[in-house]
């Protein structure tokens, strides 16, 4: 889906009788979802899956940050190595869990294939999982608010709305200055015609039904949106969008948001000159994550809770990166794609936060790698997720001889865990691939 990066929604003042609804209550158990996506392939070694400088000195991994990582340990004593770039996230360390060594598609290392795998569970595309979270009772008018375009082939994105600040502002102005005056009879008549045209078996009828469903929700939507507070014109676009997202959440417009943040340079750092910008890029990444978490945590939901208490979030890229490129000096190398290992941050409502789960291999120069790793990474320039025991919820020490996706912590399991968390039917659960078994839910992640 190529969504349009456009602007956001402000206040809509609609004075129709049919639009004068009060916002429906969100209920006692609201549950929002935010997916933050950094496109291009984040390098986990600059954040929560770092490597010691000794490995750089041995020519194994490029490190343009040039510092020794520090231990990041959870309450159970599980440790990962994190760089100082993660410091702005320390205040929130009890609000998210780190999943290291997450495997995407072992068979494809292209952007689109892995983006498709992330969003739809299939390298060739399909239905995105985020709209599924809005299905069923309590459905909101909009499946998700989106910022930024996403390079994936998705088929069920009709309910995902790409809105940004300027579009919202212009619409808000329009409706404040020129409130719509139209009678109930016209609205009912239009609905009646949509219903009448929606009785047939074909595509036109199907679309009429969809129009009817949309129009029926439009007054409530307008009433919800009408209550949205004005966006701060002095704020950065990111901050404006997050503010818009929260307003949409508050008013029940949508339960979800997909945010693809723009960075100052590409994350796809094949070129050495781009790879050297990794420290700056990852600072930006952390700033943006912190912005979202701060906004969620500082925005009250009700008297007792803030929005971080009622929101689950997931932060990832479409894959990780290699340690280096062959034939390049270690201090002047780019990095390539690595779908065998990335870090996913998951947290918020319903998640056991503060944990470090999973791990990647190749943590030292002399580590013995599994035969599977050797087969999938003949040049020894990649980390791979360590085998994972889904029942014990811990990494395994063995070194598998052949590749079986079920031996590893896979992104499919992360999404299935979200499906379980949001009480979605198991029929939606992802498999590891064509003719492969269903990926298990990470029950150890659920609180």
């Amino acid at each position: 889906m190529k969504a349009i990066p456009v602007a956001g929604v402000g206040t809509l003042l609609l004075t129709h009788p049919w639009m004068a609804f009060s916002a429906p209550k969100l209920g006692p158990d609201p549950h929002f979802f935010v997916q933050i996506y950094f496109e291009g392939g984040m390098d986990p070694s600059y954040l929560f899956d770092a490597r010691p400088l000794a490995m750089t000195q041995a020519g194994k991994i490029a490190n343009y940050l040039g510092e020794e990582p520090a231990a990041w340990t959870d309450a159970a004593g599980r440790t990962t190595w994190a760089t100082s770039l993660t410091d702005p996230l320390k205040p929130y360390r009890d609000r998210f869990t780190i999943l290291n060594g997450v495997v995407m598609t072992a068979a494809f290392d292209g952007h689109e294939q892995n983006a498709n795998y992330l969003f739809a569970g299939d390298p060739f595309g399909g239905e995105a999982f985020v709209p599924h979270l809005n299905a069923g009772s309590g459905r909101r008018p909009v499946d998700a608010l989106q910022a930024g375009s996403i390079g994936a082939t998705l088929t069920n994105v009709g309910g995902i709305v790409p809105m940004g600040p300027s579009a919202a502002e212009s619409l808000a102005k329009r409706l404040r200055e020129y409130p719509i005056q139209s009678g109930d009879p016209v609205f009912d008549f239009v609905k009646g015609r949509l219903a009448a045209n929606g009785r047939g078996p074909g595509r036109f009828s199907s679309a009429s039904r969809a129009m009817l469903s949309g129009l029926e929700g439009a007054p409530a939507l307008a009433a919800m949106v009408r209550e949205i507070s004005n966006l701060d014109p002095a704020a950065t676009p990111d901050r404006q969008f997050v503010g818009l997202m929260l307003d949409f959440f508050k008013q029940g417009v949508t339960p979800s948001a997909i945010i693809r943040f723009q960075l100052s340079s590409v994350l796809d750092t094949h070129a050495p000159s781009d790879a050297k910008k990794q420290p700056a890029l990852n600072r930006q990444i952390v700033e943006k994550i912190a912005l979202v978490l701060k906004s969620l945590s500082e925005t009250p939901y009700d008297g007792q809770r803030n929005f971080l208490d009622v929101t689950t979030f997931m932060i990832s890229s479409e894959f990780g990166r290699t340690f280096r490129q062959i034939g390049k000096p270690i201090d002047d190398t780019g990095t390539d794609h690595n779908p065998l290992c990335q870090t996913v941050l998951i947290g918020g409502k319903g998640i056991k936060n503060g944990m470090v789960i999973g791990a990647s291999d190749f943590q030292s120069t002399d580590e013995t790698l599994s035969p599977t790793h050797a087969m999938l990474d003949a040049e020894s320039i990649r980390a791979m997720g360590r085998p994972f025991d889904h029942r014990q919820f811990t990494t395994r020490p063995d070194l598998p001889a052949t590749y079986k996706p079920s031996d590893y912590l896979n992104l499919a399991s992360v999404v299935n865990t979200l499906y379980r968390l949001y009480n979605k039917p198991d029929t939606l659960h992802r498999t590891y691939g064509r003719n492969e078994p269903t990926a298990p839910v990470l029950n150890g992640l659920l609180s």
Partner: protein
Amino acid sequence: MSRIASRTIIWVTWVGVLTLASGCEKAVRPPNRIPALESPAAAELPPEVPMSEWDKKRWIDRTARKLRAGTGLKPGELTVELLALSQSQIIDRLMNDDRFGDAVLDFNLYFLGLKPDSLRSRDGSFTYVVWDTPNALGSAMSLFAKPGTPGADYLNLFDLKHPYYIRPLTRPRSENAEDAGKPDDEVRITMLNRYQNEIDELITYAERNPTVTGGELARRFFLSPGGSDWFYTGMDVGFMIWAQQARDWMGSLVLAFYAEFTPSHGWPAELRAIRARNEPVIALVKRLTAEKYAVRTLRDVQSWDVARELQLRDGWTMFNPIYAQHLAGSSTNFNRKRAAFVLKRFFCDDLIPINVSAPADHARGRHASEPSCQSCHYKLDPMAGAFRNIGFNMMNLSDSPVFTFDDKVKVNKAAFQQSWLAQPRSGRTWDIGYVRSTDHPDRNVYFDDLDGLFAFIRKAPEARRCLMRRMFEYTVGENQAVDAGYLDDLTERFNDETLIRGSVPAIKLAMKRVLMSRAFSERDRQSDRCYDLPAGVNPQDRPPCRVAYLLDKNCTACHSSSSMKGNLDLSRWVKNADGGMGFVHMDGNGNPLPRAVTFQALIDRLDTTDETARMPLNRYMPSHERTETYVWAQEALRQAVVGRRGGRR
């Protein structure tokens, strides 16, 4: 008797005779069809779909929007006289409008996957995407070209190389304070002269410093203030980028900047040659000022055969630098993205993975042991080789020992190209081409480079069929079932008419047929229903239209009512025991098998790499037909398993 009916009868007779004679073990092929060189009689058109006067008016307005690039009937245009005409006559009238050229251009861009929202900007000028796709533009311009001339060929859409279709000049952007307030044309020439002056200075520098490297010269030039003026003169930026990259023009300087290059005759001579080649551009700019050259319709477009005039090895191609934005060749995809584009856009091949066998002489590395990878790579990798010399920004790197990708990664070009080298006994240098089948290598076509690829595309039957398919999608709508036989028929007629009357009349007739189709007229279309069938086909008991023709062509020689090999009849679609629709399929004891078993068997036999089981047995099945049947069988299986009534027509 219609041509389709007679052809069908001949084909069926052949099948029947050979089936009886051989027990369906021999390969069965319909007889080759040689078009009769008839006099240009009225082309056979489908009968008009009966409709009320109200619906006919709707049809006319919709048709007008299709044929006039979005402009429907204006008030007063729907006259009694127009209404009295036949659909064919109405279409002819609308096609005589100059706006039909825009419609064809819009379709061409749709065919290439580049359709914009609007061809024109608010001021009425064509948008950049039009100028950046010379094949789409040139092909549309064929409508207005003099018949018999090279430009009067719609199939220029399939050509790689084109003249430069000159985009009208826009306002120059100069950062030089001295240019402020001066007329645009004057500023433009001043900027170009400044550019030439920078080259003069570079020539002087090169003469005084004979050991200077190309890299240093390039950096001096491109980072100089005048060095960037080239792109801000108001000429077509895409063209100016290409000019700067073209070999024998300024490509040497760009190569020296990004890779390694030293001209054989030395830099001073090279720079003088560059300077000399820029002069015609200046002359063009002087000749086609904004006052003198405006393009309101496609008739107004002028062209410049820049490659011939400047004696360049590199032509202005459909793959100009603007394509680099969409089709980056990265160090991870190795031009497979470009190959995938060609396969999807020109062959309608979405690379849906169906297992293929991995014969020994294609086996390389992992692919030999991974049939599931091979199922896409067997087509993709050889196609990607056509771009083996096309690097960053679509630049031709034939002269460079270094290959630079769009992600700025550089590799040794010989090493990069090595994987496309053919086996010594193959009789060819490169394993580059269009691979139709790994089991039937005689079906494959090999070439060396992009020129070869597009020479092949021009003749490829798959490309013609894809054109018809996209025409149907563009006119009727996407994701609409279409009978494969109907598509084949459209294609065959297009081919025949191209031979007899030329490609311009042929494409018009093809469009006309689709506009007169039932599918186009239907108000509430069902996606899985084929509204148009080949003539003479009896829909009674016919399998779902998506696959009926394909099964008939590839399977029913052995699996029909009269010859139920494997106790399976793929010629009839009947109600099964579970109430759903399916084929007649029985076990050894004559008991009907569940539908799901049949569909799974179909999938397995289409998908397997075991040559003793792969269907059709010992016969070639075009990959698009295999794919379509396979995908349909998967959906049918899914429906059968879920328990819904499957297989609506």
